[in-house]
């Protein structure tokens, strides 16, 4: 058990380091000159050279990389070329917004998927079950940004019940915060919920066929009761895996949804930084996102051992 955890930690650390190198190299080959973008159209060659030196992008790539990663290990992500502010605090600030969005989207997805998937599995021979499956097929096909655009048209532009975008921090005005989070969370969660519904359905179907459930049924439990008492935990193992995988998708979906709903999260920060060639900021954000996805995989791995007793001996 301990060895397993340690091995996972090592894999996690190495993955993040490799990712940092890949991200750095991608940024290095991206066409465009950060100094030129920062200075605008009338920049003189002397000023450009001076600014490149100021940014430190006139040094060898290896030096730049070690300088950057060394700083990151101390929690210093450097200073933005564009805003000239420290990147670290900005990242934390934006990460908060993105995590709220991803968390709320995940919650919406689970609230939809667990009952709907279980229902579709239990009633899989009936029309009601089939129609839930059908609905989830349709849901899977709708991209998050389209869901967002449709929701805004209905609830913000036409009915004017909810804001069409914008962000109020929870510690400032909890009511406004929730109103602003509803539509983005739905845009993100509906699609994810549809995807998860199908996994929940097949996992529950699998479980329903298992011997121990027949045993439980023979003790006089109704199918629903047997499932809740004995089956759901086993069914949750594949669902947790998918949840981990889906988190990565959720993060990517969040980037798009942030754009549609004008949320000051990591996604909108990333798009702005890429277009301004604010390379240090892009590197910082991508590193945080990649580390986040890897961390989720790491946690999912650990959860396995908790959920599935069969894995504990290994």
């Amino acid at each position, binding site marked *: 058990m301990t060895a397993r955890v340690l091995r996972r930690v090592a894999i996690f650390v190495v993955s993040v380091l490799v990712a940092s190198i890949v991200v750095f190299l991608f940024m290095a080959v991206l066409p465009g000159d950060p100094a030129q973008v920062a200075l605008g159209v009338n920049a003189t060659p002397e000023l450009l050279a001076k600014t490149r030196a100021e940014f430190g992008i006139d040094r060898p790539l290896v030096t730049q990389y070690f300088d950057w990663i060394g700083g990151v290990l101390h929690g210093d992500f450097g200073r933005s070329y564009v805003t000239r502010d420290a990147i670290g605090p900005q990242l934390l600030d934006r990460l908060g917004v993105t*995590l709220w969005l991803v*968390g709320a989207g995940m*919650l919406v997805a689970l609230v939809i998927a667990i009952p709907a998937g279980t229902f579709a599995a239990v009633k899989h021979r009936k029309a009601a079950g089939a129609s839930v499956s059908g609905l989830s097929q349709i849901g899977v096909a709708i991209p998050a940004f389209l869901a967002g655009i449709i929701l805004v048209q209905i609830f913000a*532009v036409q009915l004017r019940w909810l804001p*069409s975008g914008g962000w109020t921090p929870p510690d400032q005005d909890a009511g406004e915060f929730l109103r602003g989070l509803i539509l983005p969370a739905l845009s993100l969660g509906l699609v994810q919920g549809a995807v998860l519904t199908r996994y929940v359905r097949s996992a529950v179907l699998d479980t329903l066929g298992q011997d121990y459930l027949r045993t439980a049924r023979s003790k006089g439990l109704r199918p629903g009761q047997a499932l809740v008492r004995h089956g759901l935990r086993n069914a949750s193992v594949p*669902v947790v895996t998918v949840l981990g995988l889906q988190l990565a998708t959720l993060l990517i979906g969040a980037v798009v949804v942030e754009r549609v709903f004008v949320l*000051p999260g990591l996604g*909108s920060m990333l798009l702005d930084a890429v277009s*301004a060639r604010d390379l240090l900021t892009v590197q910082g954000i991508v590193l945080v996102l990649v580390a986040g996805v890897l961390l989720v995989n790491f946690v999912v791995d650990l959860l396995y051992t908790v959920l599935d007793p069969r894995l504990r001996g290994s």
Partner: protein
Amino acid sequence: MKARIPAVAAVLLLAVSGCSAGSSASVSAGPNTLSVGFTAEPANFDFTRTDGAAIPQALLYNVYEGLVRLDAQGRVVPLLAKSWTISPDRKTYDFQLQQGVKFSNGAPFTAEDVKFSLLRVKTDWTISIKANMDVIDHVDVEAPDHARVVLSKPSNGWLFSLTSRLGAMFSPTGIADLANKPVGTGPYVVAARKRGDSVVLKANPAYWGRKPAYGTVVLKYIKDPTALNNALFSNGIDVISAITAPDSIPQFQADDRFQVVQGTSNSEVTLAMNNARPPLNDVRVRQALTYAIDRKALLDTAWAGRGTLIGSMVPPTDPWYEDLANVHPFDPAKAKALLTEAHATNLNLRLRIPNLPYAVSAAQVVQSQLADVGVRTTIEPLDFPAVWLKQVFTDHDYDLSIIQHVEARDITTFGKPKYYWGYDSKRVQQLLAEADSGTPEQQVADMKQVARQLNTDAAADWLFLFPNVIVAKAKVGGFVQNQVSESFDLTGLAPR
């Protein structure tokens, strides 16, 4: 163990709620609050070191003031200077200053600050337009309310530059943190900023002039044009500062809750031609392309017919404007004849454009119309700003390009042979120099000559002038119809 999955979700939410997103800038909307939507967000508040339109748009005339400003007609009028006189040799400017003016940190504004601010452009500014102040020889403080600026040579362009961010007045006590804490003499002060979201301006209680009607103005930054429109429809904002996609305008016009204010801007949407390289170094080829493009049809397609056909690099708000739109009318037959005459009948040109909506739609029209006269073009959309700036603007690696030139009076760029136009005309350079040093009357006459010469040479094809379209709730009034300055001027806005 039954509730494992909901527990996981709860843990997620708990983990999330631990990271709060810092202080915000949204305010509770009252009748005295106005919220204005923009697409481009200022990266910081320091326009002395960060280029781009977004910072002066938010701060100029609202937070910072200069000695002079541009009025709605594009004329230079007094601001912190009550009046000024120009010596007969046009090199010495005497400014009489407003009295009782204070910076928002309490420091008084005097001629010392004029000297400090103007000389600081040379020493501390890094953005490239600072070169417009190089003509200052020295600044004398004659009295607390009298500053004298002596130029090394006469320059009309210099006084005009004073109306831009270059003329903003700073206090030596207020420059410690320009990127975050601007200190100016204007009617508003920056009260809060939430990156990626908004900037909040509050009325400056110690303002020397007329108090603005709105005590709080929230500048909301919404990059996506559709999201910007939706914010106005759903009551999230009161004003859209500039419409960037024309298809939504009829929707607002049809709705009596809103008003649409349309005027002109300084943004010439220009088909740049690489004058320095064959085949476009031949004036006949450039003229042929100009005859081949139906600019009226292009405007209808690319910007729903809104905008002005100009025919040279001069917007109607400049004193030397003349309508040159029909000097080269749409005439495909003439275009073909000119191409034949120039032995340029088998052209294949690279049209390298920024990946922006107006440029993409204009490029498609240009491509099909040039095809009609036998000129093949390959459209290459480039990431803007980074790649376009590097490859087209800096390396001049292009045949044709389409871009908005947004700066005021940027016709002077045709006087720089190294500029990406590749246009090198001694006559134009001389006329520009004479216009800058002459009397205002000479300036107008010379600049008209420049515009005509550029048109004759088909130095570029000015496709159309971008309109300035503001959409607002019907109850907000006082908008400046024509966008002539770098500022989104809040000072005149008031409830109707």
